[in-house]
């Protein structure tokens, strides 16, 4: 199973990947991208099973990436990992087809709680 981590902060990508391993998802292939455009290029090469994506990024932000995927018929499982998670943003994310939204700073428990149901469904 391939998990793609999308965030414009290299340090944050590293922390997300570390948390994935700590949460017990380390056996999956974990790849990274710095924005939505890079993410699209990445999954063109090999489809992802889950995308964990920041909201605010240069070039192409997270919600535009999700909309682009759904417009092109790509139903990849998608979750946001972002510093802002007000009810309005959550609604926008869910309406666009996201499975969950995790706010930074996050915990291992938050990752397990959000990802486990998605990856086992």
């Amino acid at each position, binding site marked *: 199973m391939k998990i793609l981590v999308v965030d414009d*902060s*290299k*340090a*944050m990508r*590293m*922390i997300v990947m570390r948390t994935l391993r700590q949460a017990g998802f380390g056996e999956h292939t974990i790849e990274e991208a710095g924005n939505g455009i890079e993410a699209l290029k990445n999954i063109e090469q090999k489809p992802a099973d889950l995308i964990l994506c920041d909201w*605010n990024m240069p070039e192409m932000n997270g919600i535009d990436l999700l909309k682009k995927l759904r417009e092109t018929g790509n139903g990849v499982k998608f979750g946001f990992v972002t*510093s*802002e998670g*007000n009810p309005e943003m959550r609604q926008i994310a869910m309406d666009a087809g996201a499975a969950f939204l995790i*706010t*930074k*700073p*996050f*915990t291992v428990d938050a990752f397990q709680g959000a990802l486990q149901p998605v990856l086992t469904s």
Partner: protein
Amino acid sequence: MASVHNIPAPDAVARLFNDLLGRRVVAKKSAVKQAVTPRSPGAFGLYGPGDDQIDGIVFCDVALACYSGAALSLIPAATVQQSVRAGKMADGTFENFSEVLNIARGWFDTPGQPPVKLRRCVPAPCDLPKELIALLLKPAERLDLDIEIDGYGAGKMLLVVK
């Protein structure tokens, strides 16, 4: 006049650092208020609901900015001590520290008010517009903190809101 924005409790500040850095962090109110100016070595985070409306400022001295930026990506403490002694952050450490301040935006969230975002992160000494200098000098609320990051060291933070 009371501020329309929240200012966090010391425990909330410590909790964010703790969760983000994955190590024990202690934040205590400082015994003495810091005299922070744009010429103070460190970094400023400028927060507001819009790019042209800054309602809150976080200042971290060089030590706290370096230690938190380094701890975020597990740069060894010994490596960053040189920057602390020199009073200047390396580019990579500053980028990491900016991410810490980006995530800290939630400190200012107040029910019924539009969410604030980190609008700019500025290394200091720097120039700040006069209205931001006024905010530093006469905030509606302020919080002076001494923060210690386990395994790295201690530094100072000032939070102010309009």
